[in-house]
Structures are given as C-alpha cells and as structure tokens.
C-alpha cells in the first residue's frame, strides 16, 4: 500500500470518527457554580372567586329531557319513579292494502337498564299502568305514585344479579294481556310508571328517549283474514314518546351556595382575576380548582357523577358560550358519593388558556354529568357563604428564570 493510500485511509477514518459522532453534552451539575441564573423557583398562590361573582344558574336540562331516568327506593338522595308514555297503538293491522282488526295474543314491555348498584342483589322493577294524561312534564311524585295501586300493577321484573346493564323485559300472556289492553275504538296510548325494590335503599338509571334507549311496548297480534281463510301474526311496536321521572324531594337551590346538578339542572359560574404578575410572566405548572361541599354529597355510591369544568368563550352569565369540542379545556372528574371532602379539579389547561388568550374570560363553568340524571346534587360554598368557604383556585407557577446575562 502506498503512502498516499495510507493517508487517505487515515483521513477517512478520522473524518468518520469526527463527523459520525453524536453530540452528547449533558452533564450533572452542582449549584451554584454550574447554575448561572440560580434555580427556578416555584410559587404557590390561592385565589378565590371575585366576591359575588360566583353564581349558580338553574333550568338547563329538565328531567324529561335527561339522558336517563331515575328510579329508586328509599335512597337518601330521594325516592324516584320513572314514567314512560308510548306511541299510540293502531286499532287495526295492515293486511295487503286494507286494515284489519286484530286480537292481541301477548305483549312485551322492555326497559333499558343503564346503571344499577352492582353491589346489591335482588333488584326488582315494578311496572304500573298510569293515566297517559298524567305522564307529562308537570308530573309530580304525588300525581304518579298515587296511581301505583295493586290494581294498576302490570308486572314486576326481577333483574338478574349478574346483569349490570342491558335490556330487561316482561311478557304478558293470556289474561295478563288485559293489563295493557287499550281502547278498541281509536288509537290507544299506554303509559307506565316504574318503581323498584331492593333489600336495601338503592337506585337505578333506566334508558331515556334522548339517548334512544327508552322503553318499548310490543304487541303480538293475530289478524283474521276471512277473504283467504288464513290467520296472520303481526307485531305492533310502540316506542317511547315521552319520559320523565319524579322525585319525592326535588332540590331547591340555595342562592347563597353553588349548586351543580339536580333537576332541572343547575350549573355554576366562577369568575376569577389572576394577578397580573402571574398572568403576564408566570409559567403555570399546575392549577387546581378546589370546591368545598356544604354537606356530604348524596347519591348512589356505585354511580358517582362527574363534575365537569369548561372554559368560556365569553362571559354572558347563564348563557355564556362554553368550549364544546376541544377536550383540553373540558375537565372532568368523579365526585365521591357520601363524602364531604374538598372536590378538586385539575384546571391547568384552562388557566393556561387565560394566559395565552386575553379575550378569554377568567371564568369556569361547572356542571354535573349525567346532567339532570344523577341522584347526586352537590352543593358547594360560595363567596356569599361563611361556611363552607368559597371555591379556591390554587395556582402553582414559576417566575421567569433569571438567565445570567451572561
């Protein structure tokens, strides 16, 4: 090998070593010698809502537009009964191009069980026939339960202990069909009320029209067609056209407290004023909204509600438009039922948004999910209540790092 080739080889080797080397510059450091600018310091501050600017507004979602219907027995959160009204059942069945009278052989009523107390066995649902005229948005606990008499009992449904959610049904045959008999003349409407029983106070959520999971009433009928001498079997299905539930003790929001949930649902608006030093130059690393319950949160332990906080586009009071699509600014967390511990929500992203966009109001809208369909009705302290104290916004932030110059 000539000397020239040797040089070329050495050059290639060295060039490869130097240029193929991946940079690695991170080394452990000891302060203060190797920490120009010192250490970033973290600060913690607690803000309360602007005095009198934390409010609850009621009337967003009425019970008959809730996503599920409540039914309970002796639950501390309150007794509830569900009400369904079905589509009118035609008084004749179509055969070819003509309508023929029919005979109801059997009938089925099915309910959609959304949530139950999974720790409790022996759940039974009781279906009562009620006056369809009373199944409306004005229905009260008294007006419905007064119809729950033995003679109005259609059937009971034993919910299998292994069933946590899904369809449950009762099929009426023979003489029992008369319990859901409808007028022969003119279209008939069936309405039912639902009660429940369990070995201990408990509750359940049933399907609703809004969630397309309402109850269904199916009639199995026989149509006599004398022209052809044959008998036809048909099914007439009636879906829920209206549903609601009634509570023995509806909630009356206290204007001095912050009410979230209930029916019709309440939402709370909290307004803050982040101090300029934090808003202008602080780096927020954590922001927590702390709400102090005025009383232990009641409800169904195995069906805890979600407390949801949303950022606002504009502060227009009760009708403030809130973020509906960006999940970063919709924060939710479960509220423990039975406890009075401070409820905490991580609202860091929302507070960071206040910093980033001046136009966004420094406010948070709170709601409870499922809205108007939860046994829980948390009530929190406000700036108008001495006990418990108002909500708190706890912000942890860093001041600008003092980079050494140089």
């Amino acid at each position, binding site marked *: 090998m000539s000397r020239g080739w*040797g040089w070329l080889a050495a050059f290639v080797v060295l060039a490869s*070593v130097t*240029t193929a080397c991946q*940079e690695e510059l991170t080394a452990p450091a000891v302060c203060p010698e*190797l920490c120009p*600018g010192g250490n970033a310091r973290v600060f913690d501050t607690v803000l309360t809502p602007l005095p009198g600017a934390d409010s609850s507004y009621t009337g967003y979602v009425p019970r008959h537009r809730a996503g599920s219907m409540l039914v309970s027995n002796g639950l501390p959160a309150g007794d509830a009964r569900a009400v369904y009204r079905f589509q009118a059942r035609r008084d004749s069945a179509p055969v070819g191009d003509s309508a023929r009278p029919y005979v109801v052989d059997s009938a089925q009523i099915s309910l959609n069980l959304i949530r139950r107390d999974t720790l409790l066995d022996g759940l039974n649902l009781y279906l009562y026939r009620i006056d369809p005229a009373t199944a409306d948005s004005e229905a009260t606990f008294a007006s419905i339960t007064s119809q729950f008499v033995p003679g109005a009992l259609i059937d009971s449904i034993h919910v299998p202990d292994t069933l946590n959610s899904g369809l449950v049904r009762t099929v009426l045959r023979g003489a029992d069909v008369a319990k859901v008999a409808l007028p022969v003349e003119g279209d008939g409407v069936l309405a039912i009320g639902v009660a429940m029983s369990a070995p201990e106070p408990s509750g359940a959520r049933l399907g609703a029209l809004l969630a397309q999971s309402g109850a269904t009433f199916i009639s199995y009928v026989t149509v006599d067609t004398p022209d052809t001498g044959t008998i036809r079997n048909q099914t007439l299905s009636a879906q829920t056209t209206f549903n609601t539930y009634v509570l023995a003790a509806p909630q009356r929001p206290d204007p001095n407290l912050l009410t979230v949930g209930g029916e019709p649902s309440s939402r709370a608006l909290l307004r803050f004023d982040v101090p300029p030093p934090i808003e202008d130059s602080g780096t927020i*690393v954590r922001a927590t909204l702390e709400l102090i319950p005025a009383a232990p949160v009641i409800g169904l332990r195995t069906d805890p509600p979600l407390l949801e906080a949303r950022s606002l586009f504009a502060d227009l009071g009760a009708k403030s438009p809130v973020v509906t699509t960006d999940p970063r600014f919709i924060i939710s967390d479960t509220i423990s039922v039975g406890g009075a511990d401070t409820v905490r929500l991580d609202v860091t992203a929302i507070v960071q948004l206040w910093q980033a966009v001046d136009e966004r109001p420094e406010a948070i809208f709170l709601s409870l999910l499922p809205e108007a369909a939860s046994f829980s009705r948390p009530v929190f302290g406000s700036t108008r209540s001495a006990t418990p104290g108002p909500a708190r916004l706890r912000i942890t932030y860093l001041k600008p790092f003092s*980079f050494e*110059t140089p």
Partner: protein
Amino acid sequence: MRRLLLLALLTLAPATVAAQASQFGVRGLGVPGRPLSTRAAGSSGAFAMFDAESGLNPATIGGLPAMTATFNSSASFRTVENPAGSASLRSTRFPYVSFGGPARGTPFAVGVSYSTYTNRDFSNATLDTLELRDVLIPVFDTLSSRGGMSDLRIAGSFKARERSVIGGSFHILTGSNRMEQHRTFTDNQYRPVEQSTELSFAGVGVSLGAVHQLGRSLWVAAIARSDGGASVERDSAPVGDIDLPYSLGLGLRWKAGARLDLAAHGIFRTWSGANSDLLALGGSGSDNTVEVAFGGEFANDPRRPNRAPIRFGVYYATLPFLLPPGLQPEEYGASLGSGVRFAQDRGSLDLAVGYLSRSTGDFEERGFTLSFGVAVRP
C-alpha cells in the same frame, strides 16, 4: 507508513475528553477558543505565532505561498467530574476556517478567517426536591446553552524587509447564546416547564503582529490585540457592555537542525477588565489569563519537510471565568500530529490528537480531541 497507522489507531483509541464545549464554559462568556490550524494544533499551538494558516498573528499570512483555503474540524471526547457526579460527553465542532494569500507582485498578503472566540455549549442537569402543596416533589432541571462568540478576522500583512513581516487585522466579534431551562416534575400533575432566552453579542477588535528573523535559524514574533468591548443584548433588548481583553504575546522559533524545528510562545490576556462588567450583570467574574506553549516538528525527510512530519507539543493556560469564587480554572494539554502535502503542494491533510485536562477545585475535565484539517491551494 507505520506512523500513519499509529496515528489512525490513535484516532480510534477509547477516549474521554473535551475541547470546546465544557463545564468551564458555563460562566461568563464561555471557554475562549484558539484560532489554530490543525497543523498548529499538532504542536499544541506552539507554532501558532508563526503559522500562516492559523489566525493568531496577522503577520503570518505573509508566509502563505499562494491563495490558500483551510477547513478544520475537531471532535472531543471527555469525562466531566464535579461534586454532582461524572459523565462522558462528546461533541464535534468546526472551530476554524480561513482563506488568504499573497497579492501577486506586491509585498502584501490578505486573508479572512472565521474562528471560535468563546464557546458556551453546555447542558447541565440537576436534581432537586421541592415542597409543593405540602408534598415533597423531586424535580429534574436542565440548563442548556448553544452558541458563543465568533471572530471574523480580516487581516493583511506587509513584508517590510527581507526578514520582517508586519501585519494587522480587524476583528468582528459577534454571536449568540441560545439558552434554555427545562424543568420536569416527577409528579405528572405538574406540567413540565421550558423557558428560553437568547443573548447576543457584538463588538470589534484590532490586532497587530510581527514576525522577524533574527538569524539563520531564529525567529521571533509578537502580537498585540485589543478587542474593545462587546455589547450584550438579551432577547433584542440591550442589557450592558462587557470589556474584552487586551492580548499581548511573544513567540520564539528555533530551527534546531535540518530535521527539528522548535517553537514556543506566551500570551497574556487582560480578562480581568471584564470582571466588573460580569459582576454587574450577575455573573461570576473573571481574571487575567496566561497561555504558554512549547512544541516541535520533526521532519522525516529534511528535503521534503512537509511529508509526514511528526509534530508534538504541550501547553498550559489559565481560563478567564471562575467557577468557585477565587479559584481560577487552568488547563494543560499535550498533542501529537502529522500531515502530508500532495498534488505538488496544492493540497494538504493534517491530523492531530490532543490530550486536555482542565480543573479548578472539585471540578475536572479530561479527554482527547481529534482534529483534522484540509488546505487547498488552487
């Protein structure tokens, strides 16, 4: 050939060290650079006062036989130790490029070069525990910087007499530090933090240099340089000025024989002038520095001295910016190099490997640098 293979093996040797990026560049303006060609780096810079391809003495460009472009690269492999622990680091930089040559038919030569004035590349990691909301939370901080100051030199030389060359240069000193501070919390309820800033520097300097041949085999060289001051801006807002040093240097070269060429130099820089400015800006202060180097070049073939000579050298220097107060960092190094010219001296390749050690108090840094340079004389 065996020497070449030895050199190649040296480049592959397991190494730990540093050259430019350093924990000693964390404070002040960083680690001062040395505008050395790879050829001069092979002798630890001992020949830099006389080397036409180096940027130390503007008079030396009069020694360029033709228009010459040089490109130099350096990789460092180092071990850093301090009370917080140790780490093995590596980096690659291109610290020096130059272009220049004689003005044909005149006693003048001109050139430009671009070199590292100070380097402030580092990433420092620290662990701490903070009490946040009554809970102890471990945090991990990283402070990093990239950049430094660069020296754009425009130089000219004049061959005053047969044995004397004088030169002068104008220096544009500019650059920036992009600094970032990251903090992550082990509790992921706390968002990670990233803050950054950019420091920019601007200044000008001038230097004068001379090389004089005292006898058949003895040369002396001298330089004097003033870098004035650097104005400092932080995120485009002026924050102050920093005095940059005066530099005075003297070099001696002795051709001890047909095969052996020896050189040495010493340079004194008045970095203490920046002390008050750095302290006023919140820095840690600075002190004057000295640099001395001694080295030689052994020619295998006296008739063709540029054909794979063996270069060697050692040097010692103090660093201007203090880590622990009152303790000035110092560094020493040794190097070995060689090179070859080809295509009728129109091209050359130079290689150098150097050992470097820096220390002050409990802070140490050791490692190797690998340098290679290419020169083209079209």
